């Protein structure tokens, strides 16, 4: 039987929504559900209207979904603010000791499920968090979950806090289950045995961090900025055991400067921020580019411009990344598309950076950074190797020696006879500055020309190594949908829905944005009956970018810039409209 449920916890900042969301996700994960969880919140520390929505399926979860089946209201204020959509048949659970929903204008089909959380927990302990566990018990009764498995999660979560904590939590759980049973709450699914789960529950940022660690990340620096900060939070957690350096700096300029320094020295290094911090980093991105120092820069996009909407998602920094820093130099831009892909990109980005001695920009977005998703067990065991580092440089070592593929092997400080000068100015093969030391000498012009070519050639070499973009779905579809970044699975879900309605759509998703597979993309788009670009921005940046790179004009666009992730029904509706008018 297909199982697919959406549970939404609604509360304020300070209610511990993330902990609640993660804990309930873990309970569902224990039952072998696939999960996607996403928090919608504001830039405040206390108060406001926040939600944590979980979608659990026994098949792959492609989006967090739209209408919730079960809503758990955590306080009175949000109960007033919460407006269920007309026609919603959601079950709304709330603490009727604290407030009632009678005077609120809720649609008729909403099923109100009051539960006296305060009185129930009072019998156990004063701990407020127990209210949530009682609620979990009641929800688990609706979903037909296995009490033993939930208790396993409670043990794993609170085991370190002692027996009493486990005992009270278990008691709260039992009381929640019993209350739902006694009051004949609806039962969505019947109780049955669940297979043992092997999956991980992890966010996009954490997966990216794991990927980098697995590829030998040794240095990470950053300045706090949503939605990139959680990378630092995660990396610092296990610092002594990992033996890596994680550095919070005075600003983003220092963050990227330190990462460049560490990388120059041979440590695999990365830095991370969002658009605002990325703006500050751009000058040094160019420096790393001309000095050919490997560097990974993560930029997790949020709604701009300027401070914009700090806790909301957007995909509007493609041109910022593409145009970062003055002049021309090879710059790699990769946009991971889901949590598991973020792990792969973490590995790939560090390797490309070292092998090609280039800056790799990893363009995340808030929706991907902060989504918590179940993924298959990620394999962190790797046999890493080093690229293009000389331990015993030849006597005539020239750091920037011209080469077929544009790559010149480097030495790192500490290596005997490997000393060289590098600077942010143009240079000759030995590294000597054309601007100062060799200023005005007649043979400097041809050297400049060749040096630019040498650097840019690296992209031509790299593009052949990167996997070609693939068209997903039937070749002769009525429409080709184009997307990038975190919208991939939402588009996939829309394609499935459209198929059910008899409309065929195929899907071109772009992960490697620079270097760009111009020919492949051109061919795919030219074959399409009609095309639609789906993006989280106002101007259609990918659409413009594709036209710039290929000359192909994508006919239609579906854009969203209100800060919330695009939803499946939007895409379905847009495709229907386009196909009808074709």
């Amino acid at each position, binding site marked *: 039987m297909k199982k697919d449920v959406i549970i939404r916890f609604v509360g304020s900042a300070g209610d511990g929504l993330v902990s609640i969301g993660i804990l309930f996700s873990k309970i569902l994960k224990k039952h072998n559900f696939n999960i996607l969880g996403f928090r919608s919140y504001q830039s405040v520390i206390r108060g406001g209207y926040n939600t944590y929505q979980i979608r659990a399926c026994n098949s792959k979860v492609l989006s967090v979904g739209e209408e919730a089946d079960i809503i758990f209201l955590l306080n009175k204020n949000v109960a007033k603010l919460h407006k269920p959509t007309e026609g919603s048949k959601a079950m709304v659970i709330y603490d009727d000791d604290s407030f009632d929903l009678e005077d609120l204008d809720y649609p008729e089909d909403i099923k109100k499920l009051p539960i006296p959380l305060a009185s129930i927990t009072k019998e156990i302990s004063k701990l407020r968090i127990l209210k949530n566990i009682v609620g979990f018990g009641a929800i688990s009764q609706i979903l037909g979950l296995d009490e033993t498995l939930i208790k396993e999660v409670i043990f794993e979560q609170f085991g370190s806090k002692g027996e009493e904590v486990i005992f009270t939590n278990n008691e709260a759980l039992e009381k929640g289950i019993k209350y739902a049973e006694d009051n004949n709450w609806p039962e969505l699914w019947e109780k049955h045995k669940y297979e043992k789960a092997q999956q991980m529950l992890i966010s996009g940022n954490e997966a990216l961090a794991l990927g980098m660690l697995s590829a030998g990340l040794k240095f990470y620096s950053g300045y706090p900025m949503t939605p990139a900060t959680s990378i630092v939070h995660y990396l610092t957690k296990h610092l002594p055991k990992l033996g890596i350096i994680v550095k919070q700096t005075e600003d983003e300029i220092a963050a990227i400067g330190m990462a460049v320094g560490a990388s120059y020295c041979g440590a695999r290094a990365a830095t991370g921020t969002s658009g605002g911090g990325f703006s500050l980093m751009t000058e040094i991105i160019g420096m790393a580019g001309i000095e050919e120092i490997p560097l990974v820069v993560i930029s997790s996009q949020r709604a701009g411009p300027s401070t914009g909407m700090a806790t909301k998602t957007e995909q509007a920094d493609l041109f910022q990344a593409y145009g970062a820093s003055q002049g021309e130099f090879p710059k790699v831009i990769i946009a991971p598309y889901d949590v598991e892909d973020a792990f792969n990109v973490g590995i790939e980005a560090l390797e490309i950076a070292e092998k090609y001695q280039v800056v790799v920009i990893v363009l995340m977005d808030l929706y991907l950074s902060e989504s918590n998703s179940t993924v298959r067990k990620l394999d962190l065991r790797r046999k890493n190797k080093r690229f293009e580092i000389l331990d015993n440089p030849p006597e005539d070592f020239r750091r920037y020696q011209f080469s077929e593929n544009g790559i010149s092997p480097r030495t790192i*400080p500490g290596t005997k006879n490997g000393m060289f000068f590098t600077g942010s100015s143009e240079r000759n093969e030995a590294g000597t500055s054309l601007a100062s030391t060799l200023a005005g000498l007649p043979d400097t012009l041809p050297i400049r020309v060749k040096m630019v070519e040498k650097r840019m050639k690296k992209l031509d070499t790299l593009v052949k190594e990167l996997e070609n973009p693939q068209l997903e779905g039937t070749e002769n579809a009525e429409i080709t949908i184009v997307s990038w970044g975190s919208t991939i699975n939402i588009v996939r879900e829309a394609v499935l829905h459209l198929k059910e309605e008899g409309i065929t759509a195929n899907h071109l998703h772009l992960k490697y944005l620079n270097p760009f597979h111009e020919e492949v993309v051109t061919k795919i788009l030219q074959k399409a009956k009609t095309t639609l670009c789906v993006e989280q921005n106002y101007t259609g940046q990918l659409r413009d970018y594709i036209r710039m790179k290929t000359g192909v004009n994508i006919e239609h666009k579906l854009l969203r810039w209100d800060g919330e992730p695009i939803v499946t029904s939007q895409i379905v509706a847009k495709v229907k409209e386009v196909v009808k008018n074709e």
Partner: protein
Amino acid sequence: MNKEFNLTIKDYESGFFPTWCPGCGNFSQWRAIRQALVELEIPKEEVVLVSGIGCSSHMPNFLDVYGLQTVHGRGIPVATGIRLANPELTVLVYAGDGDIYGIGGNHFLHSCRRNVDIITIVSNNFVYGLTTGQASATTPVGTFTRTTPRGSIENPLNPSTIAISAGATFVARAFSGDLKHLAYVLKEAIDHRGFAYVDVFSPCITFNKNQTFDYFRERVYKLEETEHDKEDYFAALDLSNQRFVKDKLPTGIFYQIEHKTTYEERDFSLNQGIIPAHAPLDLTEEQIETITEEFY
């Protein structure tokens, strides 16, 4: 004395003669840095000289060590990253007053409090030289420059006082016109455990007609020839301010303490003796278990 060490000051030259104006204050620093390295017997491959942008920042071109010129003002963070990735290296920052006190001021402040074991040498000529003579953060009030044709109306900052109050563990000043003393101060700075900072009065003979070699010769005196106790914080603060009070310019070590732990000693990875630049890339089974446990 290391018997195997037989390098001379000449061996640390890159083979390119500096492109500074003849008579520039940077020349004696070019010599003094090499002299200090030779006296301390630091092999060339273990030295990284990081600079920014400006006349003085051309320095790494002229030394046969690992040399890295950054963009304007960013030598300190880059040097910090180098040192943290490999604490076996001797890492020097060399740049001008515009670079370190102006555009890079924030990094200067934080490097003082952070106490990473790097050495920052500032060639302070009280003017922007490479851009042909504009006011800098150390230009005195009333000075005529190309951006202050009616005389500078901003107060200059006093970098040594700032460094001491920001927590630097080695703060000194030297004068380009006194090579012997300059080399001594630099040697002490490099030998210091923790962040060391040296402000060098280094006349710009082309764009600064005020702070000239003669100007300094008339005013400087050496703290080493006085009773100054370099561990005395308040005495150090007071002396570093004398420029504004008595028109006397003390040079030498204002302040030096060795009892403060360095960043490297406090860092949870480096204090295990790990050298990130050379540490194995692959995670161990135990590490994998630790870092993934929370996801199950």
